[in-house]
């Protein structure tokens, strides 16, 4: 119960703002009458001469789902790490239940009751579910592990999260990303946690798994646990979030907006500082006489997908829609030669590609932007220009001698065209944001000169502003005659970009339909029908 002056002040505050919407007032009451679980005031953090956070405010109420929005590089990750005790802020204060606290290290954060689920899930693959959950606070007497009790508690926790079917003895390495996330959450719950920070939890999930995640999140909040939810997917935020705070360039631009009251255009403006009207740029129709560039016939990989057939013409964008695990990424990888096909063939402009040879595919002008940018796409310690020319440095070379001057110049040209930031070709690729790393991969194939571009999740972990730039780029590439195949777990993205959509279910092509004849529901219907058949 607040003290009298505080209460009084709160009352005045409320009455002075009665002109505002009822909802807003309700939030003010929530803010002022209940002590927020967590309050962050004017937090700043500097690394060397880079100011990552310049003044962030945040107020989290118990039991709410609070969304933090911001472009890549806005400072979200730094803020999370400050709350998780990884970094100590240079300025500002953090109040926990109204008391000023310093979070010196990750253990201190856990002791306060703050758990963090990072994007790269911090579970140990070689240990069992139970061992992971009690890692660091093992249940033991006199140094001897009490396996039975740990397993029982684990079973209870998993049941609470709606996953009673998972065995505590199962090795975590054998779990899907969705289930690893459940383990990560169960670990948070195994301690006395009041606040869970989730950094893009849906990035590795398909739509069915996201639904389950939301169910779990609601279960957590109903027992009074607050959730800080970070995501780039605005439609998700609408479903799960209650209030939104926005960060731009290390500063809070809005705090505690009600999700239901705030239009998307306003959110984008708060995040990017500019208006983005059309996320998806308009399509140019494929010319009727456009030649067929890519032809895939009866392609199969035993046990994953079979009998896949499609062709892509110059300037056409074909989207593969399907659930995670439907085989859509594997189809791309097989077309590219990264997986060996058990039957079938892939040809580019009539030339049949050698089965299982990426080298041959690249030689014929096929390029892939892989799903896992960091682990499959980039040399993180190497400069931007070497990443851009990774597929083509041999072409710049004469009798095996590198020509770094020409490579740098080519990279610089791409940096300009793609608005890649920072624009220094000698900067290490690992220091760039997700959107800019994606641009490096596109630049790689632009420099190499591809006829067929395969894009696997081109906007995963890319913020809204950079997304529309990447969409525009893909469109421009296609307008210039590149045949493009795109895979995305966001059906909206496939529909917005593709001319034609192949619906994939259980390793088969269920339908091939012009994108204009589909909407999100009809795609899901097609998938369901196909799975039932």
């Amino acid at each position, binding site marked *: 119960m607040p003290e009298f002056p505080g209460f009084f002040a709160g009352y005045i505050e409320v009455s002075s703002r009665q002109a505002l919407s009822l909802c807003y007032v309700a939030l003010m009451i929530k803010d002022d009458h209940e002590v927020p679980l967590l309050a962050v005031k004017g937090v700043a953090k500097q*690394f*060397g001469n880079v100011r990552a956070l310049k003044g962030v405010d945040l107020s989290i109420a118990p039991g709410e789902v609070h969304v933090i929005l911001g472009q890549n590089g806005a400072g979200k990750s730094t803020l999370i790490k400050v709350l998780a005790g990884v970094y100590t802020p240079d300025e500002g204060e953090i109040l926990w239940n109204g008391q000023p606290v310093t979070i010196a290290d990750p253990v201190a954060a856990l002791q306060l009751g703050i758990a963090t689920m990072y994007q790269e899930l911090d579970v140990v693959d070689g240990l069992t579910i139970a061992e992971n959950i009690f890692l660091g606070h093992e249940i033991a007497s006199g140094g001897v592990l009490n396996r039975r009790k740990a397993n029982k508690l684990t079973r209870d926790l998993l049941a609470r999260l709606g996953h009673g079917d998972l065995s505590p003895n199962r090795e975590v390495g054998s779990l899907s990303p969705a289930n690893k996330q459940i383990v990560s959450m169960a670990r948070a719950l195994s301690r006395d946690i009041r606040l869970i920070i989730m950094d893009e939890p849906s990035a590795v999930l398909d739509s069915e798994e996201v639904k389950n995640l939301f169910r779990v999140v609601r279960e957590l909040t109903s027992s009074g646990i607050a959730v800080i939810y970070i995501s780039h997917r605005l439609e998700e935020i609408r479903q799960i979030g209650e209030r939104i705070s926005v960060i731009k360039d290390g500063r809070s631009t809005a705090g505690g907006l009600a999700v239901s009251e705030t239009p998307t255009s306003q959110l984008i403006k708060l995040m990017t500082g500019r208006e983005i009207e059309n996320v998806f740029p308009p399509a140019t129709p494929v010319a009727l006489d456009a030649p067929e560039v890519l032809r895939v016939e009866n392609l199969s990989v035993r046990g994953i997908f079979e009998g896949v057939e499609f062709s892509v013409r110059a300037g056409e964008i074909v989207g593969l829609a399907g659930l995670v695990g439907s085989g859509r990424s594997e189809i791309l990888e097989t077309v*590219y030669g*990264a997986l060996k096909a058990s039957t079938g063939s892939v040809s580019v402009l009539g030339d049949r590609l050698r089965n299982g040879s*990426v*080298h041959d*595919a*690249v030689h014929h002008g096929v390029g892939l932007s*892989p799903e896992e940018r960091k*682990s*499959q*796409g*980039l*040399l*993180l*310690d*190497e400069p931007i220009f*070497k990443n851009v020319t*990774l*597929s*083509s*440095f*041999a*072409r*710049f*070379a004469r009798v*095996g*001698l*590198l*020509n770094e*001057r*020409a*490579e*740098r*110049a*080519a990279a*610089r*040209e*791409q940096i300009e*065209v*793609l*608005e890649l930031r920072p624009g220094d070709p*000698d900067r290490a690729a690992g*220091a760039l944001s997700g959107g800019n790393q994606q641009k490096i991969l596109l630049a*790689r194939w*632009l*420099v*190499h*000169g*591809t*006829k067929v571009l395969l894009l696997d999740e081109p906007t995963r972990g890319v913020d809204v502003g950079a997304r529309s*730039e990447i969409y*525009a*780029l893909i469109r*421009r*590439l296609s*307008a*210039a*005659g*590149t045949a493009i195949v795109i895979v995305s777990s966001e059906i909206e993205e496939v529909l917005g970009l593709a001319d034609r959509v192949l619906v994939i279910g259980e390793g088969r092509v269920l339908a091939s339909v012009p994108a204009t004849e589909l909407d999100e529901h009809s795609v899901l219907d097609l998938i369901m029908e196909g799975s039932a058949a």
Partner: protein
Amino acid sequence: MSEQTVPSAEPISPAAASASGEPAERGSWLSRFLGGGAGRNLGLVIALLVLFVIGALTAGDRFTNVDNILSILRLASIVGVMSIGMTFVIIGGGIDLSVGSVAGLGSIVATLATVQTLADSTSWLVMVVIAIAVGVIVGFINGVVISYGNVVAFMATLAMLVAARGFAEIVGNRGTLIVRSQEFIEFFRANLLGIPVLIWIFIIVAALGWFLLNRTTFGRRTVAIGGNREAARLAGIPVKRHTVYLYALSGLTAGIAAVMFLGRTNVGTSTHGTLYELDAIAAVVVGGTLLIGGRGTIVGTVLGVLIFTTLTNLFTQNNLNTSVQAVVKGAIIVLAVMLQQRFAARNKRR
């Protein structure tokens, strides 16, 4: 994003790209220097200078005279040549434990009676070619087993370490074979500009290694594969084939080392090069090459080799026993790797 040129789907011709002007490089000269490979090697240069100062203070003229300096370099030359090949393998994300015994095997095969008879009737260079060929063949086998047999490099080359030594014992009948060719012996006994041939070989191999790593597509592929194998593969680099080349290259330098053993001792024996693989790996790692691959320099490796051999010489000059030497060497390896980790961490945070 308003008025921009459509990115062309045509390949950018290298000529056109290089024609567009190059703006001034950014960043101060000093920070670029310290951040780059040269800056990291500065620490090694300082360490080497410190060793020289200690040598001069403790052993005086015995240490600093030209003959002693040359004997340090001669001592460094054989393991140095091996280390150059090893640097490539380690930057490429692998390891080669077999180089020492490959050098032993090469020295035996090159001094077999039949080979020497052939050399007598033609040229002593036959022995050189045979020794190097043995190295390349064994390295090639290593590479194929690792790349296409999917055997972990550590185990494949450990197996070769044992097998090559055994094979050398069989072929050489556990004996010592003497080099008959006087021309061969003369060549390696000679000096050029006052510097022994063995040291020249080290200098040439190191220079070629530097060029290969920094200025050729071969070097770029090596760094890419060591830095991110999957990304390199998906970018169209023939990763498996290149890995075979890397081990063949390491075999090549081990073969050259075999020739150098023959030149220095005038005998071929299966015990040549025993434990040299560990000295070579230690020199490469102390020289700043990451054991996980993707980063390393030839200059660092050369400095690493010089540090170890100078240290050995320093101990001998001061009549300290080899056991103390071994302990100090171990400490230096740990210290160097710890410093490397700190540097890597600082770089990450940048």
